[in-house]
């Protein structure tokens, strides 16, 4: 038993068995992949001809994983009707997803949410998606052919041991299908009021007996939201993306994968920029754009169920132009991993990695950077041993990640986990882990005037001049540290009901917060006063919570899935804005999904969500903002008149004409998420 990099976790679809048979047979018709029922109908001769979709490593059953794991299967994705990755994450307990405007999302796990939330490690097929500029994720730029996602694995809590820095509050791993699993052509196209037009095509084909490939292209055009108050938000956007994947089996043990994507996006939107003259803020229409691409190569050698090796290298390019900055980031990454079983009691995974990040950033408007060119080197290694104390009962997992980065030098992130299986269908686990979030270039080099407080307006009182607040990065900052204690319990109460709960308590230290400096007088261009807010590591505090996921197969045609989380964060310091983290998280969150197969051709999916109020979001434009709680409902009706044709009608956020979910920390006027409807057709050839 071990905690493997998430690619090896078992899918929930496999766990849920019977309930997924309906969808399995549909996939089978499309791609030639056979389900269990079809396989046993085959004769011996026919069986000899069936190919293995992928020679899997020793799969770790989800049931046994000693961490707070949730898996979004391909079926979950299909049934949710969502057309973006962050929207899919709303079904995960302990994960906060708040849409800021039509283009942007704030996503985090276990608190600390924000547009610039920076404590999640997000991967797609082993490629890191968080921006090295600020360690957060540009969610609008993360996409793929959604139908080809095999699963999304979400691990809440410090997953640092194997995955490395930034996995402080969680790891999200998006895994796409092997090319052998996507043989055939799939085309979809849809129209709606918010999601105005979207279409995509994937063609998967066999090159020879050992090589499969696919290519895809997709397009999405999204309408604008409304600002609070009803004016057009001008945040409409589009995305064009394409990609490919080739999987080649060299022999029984070795396989090679080459894959890549490229995209370009129009991200125009309103930007509020502080000015030095009344009314001290100005609204611009910013013609922002982003584009990028990546190429991944992977060699996997599976020697036996007990031993495998993997070597992966990738290059990723991201370019973004917006009101504040021009940005170009190129990342080169090499990773090696080896898993083996030296004796019956030990199972070891170890690995080495190197990453070179080349960042070029320059400020625009009144934003500046102190240094434009950066080349950062990251060396890392990890080792983990799963020690069987009592076979089938007790397992101890010890491991640590070690890394050397250019910001803080050497970092160790150890963890200890213990797993106890009191019975066949129950798992108890406990873990203590230390995780760090290393500083990013953006935090070090920025000089950002983010707010101008008018004369004689509290807290700028008494002062006849405007006060310009300027955020200043820190060259000597430390990593944010976290020590987390976790407890988990998984229980398959019956073949139809399973429960998964996690409790956590974590102490964090060296948290990032700006400390106000002295006020100075600046005579030009217009006389004003200025206060520098120096970003430092002065925040400490604690966070705790409980997360619950339950799946109930009510009957062969109905499944209910619940996710609930309760969470609190307490900052301990005397600085202004000390409710920073507590104020940005909903204390309670609930997701309830009901999937009903009305007939073999007709399926209904209902998804209700409740998100508690955000008590006090700290924003640059004024006093803290409170976002009311909301309850929303999504509905999808899918009709499959024949196995290769699917028509879906989706209604999202149906209960309210519009609702607010978040306000970005700075620069973006708050907008509201609107009720929307879209329909689409999916055809397989």
């Amino acid at each position, binding site marked *: 038993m071990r905690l493997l990099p998430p690619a090896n976790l078992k899918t929930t679809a496999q766990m849920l068995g019977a309930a997924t048979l309906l969808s399995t047979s549909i996939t089978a018709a499309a791609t030639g992949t056979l389900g*269990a029922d079809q396989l046993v109908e085959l004769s*011996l001769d026919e069986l000899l001809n069936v190919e293995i979709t992928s020679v899997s490593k020793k799969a770790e059953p989800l049931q046994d994983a000693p961490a707070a794991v949730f898996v979004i299967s391909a079926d979950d994705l299909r049934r949710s009707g969502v057309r973006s990755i962050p929207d899919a994450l709303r079904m995960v307990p302990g994960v906060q997803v708040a849409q800021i405007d039509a283009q942007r999302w704030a996503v985090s796990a276990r608190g600390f949410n924000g547009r610039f939330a920076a404590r999640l490690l997000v991967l797609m097929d082993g490629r890191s998606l968080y921006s090295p500029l600020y360690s957060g994720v540009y969610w609008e730029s993360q996409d793929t052919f959604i139908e080809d996602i095999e699963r999304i694995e979400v691990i809440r809590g410090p997953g640092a041991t194997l995955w490395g820095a930034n996995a402080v509050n969680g790891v999200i791993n998006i895994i796409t299908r092997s090319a052998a699993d996507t043989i055939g052509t799939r085309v979809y196209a849809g129209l709606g009021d918010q999601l105005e037009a979207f279409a995509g095509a994937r063609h998967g*084909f*066999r*090159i020879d007996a050992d090589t499969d490939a696919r290519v895809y292209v997709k397009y999405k055009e999204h309408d604008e939201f409304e600002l609070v108050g009803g004016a057009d938000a001008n945040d409409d956007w589009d995305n064009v993306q394409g990609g490919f994947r080739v999987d080649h089996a060299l022999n029984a043990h070795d396989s090679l994968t080459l894959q890549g994507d490229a995209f370009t996006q129009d991200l125009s939107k309103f930007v509020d920029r502080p000015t030095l003259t009344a009314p001290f803020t100005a609204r611009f229409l910013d013609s922002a754009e982003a584009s990028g691409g990546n190429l991944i190569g992977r060699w996997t050698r599976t020697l036996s169920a007990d031993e495998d090796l993997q070597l992966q290298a990738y290059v990723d390019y991201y370019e973004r*132009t917006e009101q504040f900055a021009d940005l170009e980031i190129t990342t080169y990454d090499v990773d090696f991993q080896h898993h083996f079983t030296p004796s019956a009691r030990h199972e070891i995974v170890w690995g080495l990695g190197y990453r070179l990040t080349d960042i070029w950033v*320059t400020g625009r408007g009144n934003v500046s950077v102190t240094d434009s*060119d950066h080349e950062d080197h990251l060396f890392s290694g990890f080792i983990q041993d799963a020690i069987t104390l009592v076979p089938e009962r007790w397992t101890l997992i010890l491991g640590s990640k070690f890394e050397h980065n250019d910001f803080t030098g050497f970092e160790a992130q150890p963890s200890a986990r213990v797993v106890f299986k009191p019975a066949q269908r129950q798992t108890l686990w406990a873990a203590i882990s230390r995780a760090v979030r290393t500083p990013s270039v953006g935090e070090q080099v920025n000089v950002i005037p983010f707010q101008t407080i008018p004369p004689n307006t509290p807290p700028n009182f008494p002062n006849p001049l405007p006060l310009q607040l300027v955020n200043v990065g820190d060259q000597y900052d430390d990593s944010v540290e976290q020590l987390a204690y976790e407890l988990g319990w998984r229980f398959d109460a019956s073949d139809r009901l399973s429960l998964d709960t996690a409790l956590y308590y974590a102490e964090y230290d060296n948290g990032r917060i700006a400390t106000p400096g002295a006020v100075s007088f600046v005579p030009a261009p217009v006389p004003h006063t200025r206060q520098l807010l120096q970003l430092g590591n002065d925040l400490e505090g604690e966070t705790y919570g409980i997360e619950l996921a339950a799946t109930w197969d009510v009957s062969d045609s109905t499944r209910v899935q619940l996710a609930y989380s309760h969470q609190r964060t307490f900052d301990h310091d005397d600085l202004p804005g000390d409710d920073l983290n507590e104020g940005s998280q909903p204390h309670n969150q609930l997701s309830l999904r009901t999937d009903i197969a009305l007939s073999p051709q007709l399926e209904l999916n209902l998804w209700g969500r409740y998100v508690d109020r955000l008590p006090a979001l700290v924003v640059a434009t004024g006093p803290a903002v409170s976002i009311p709680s909301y309850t929303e409902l999504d509905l999808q009706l899918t009709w499959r008149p024949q196995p290769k044709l699917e028509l879906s009608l989706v209604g999202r956020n149906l209960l309210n004409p519009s609702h607010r979910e978040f306000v970005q920390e700075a620069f973006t006027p708050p907008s509201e998420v609107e009720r929307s409807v879209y329909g689409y057709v999916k055809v397989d050839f």
Partner: protein
Amino acid sequence: MPSKPATAPRRRPPALLAGLLALAACLRVDAAPPTASEAAIKAAYVFNVVKFTEWPDAAFGNDDDPLVICTDARGEQRSALDSLVGKQTRERSVAVRGLPDRDLTDCHVAVIEDRANDGRLGGRQPVLTITTFDHAESMVHVFVDGRRLRFAVRLPPAKQAAITFSAKLLGVAATVHE
């Protein structure tokens, strides 16, 4: 360090994409054989091997006793074997259980994945043994050959347990050890 000049906003066309589509158009496309997960194929092999195996009459108590498959498989493989539960073969319905701690008397088939359990092989009870590793006392060895699964049959341990295989099964086996 020299810094690059600030430039006007650019849009880089996804050149990679255009290249790929061109590449795709040139490639020959073969018809793909059916595929399935390794675990599911293995489970189907187990079911098929059972179809072509004869047990001595004493192996079953009553006519309506289930055919019991005992296994140490875990995770995905166990789930795949569990999907056989209730299926009818040889006029009996299939049951799947964990490998008993002591002897295999209550099992008709033992599917063993963990070499550490090889001590369970070689008994004289009429139990069909199927392993995923090669062993002199294993009756059927299922293994990966390239992208497909194959199996080998060993007759001596089967003979010792009074188990016989049909000629059809032996005809499709990759190897038959006499």
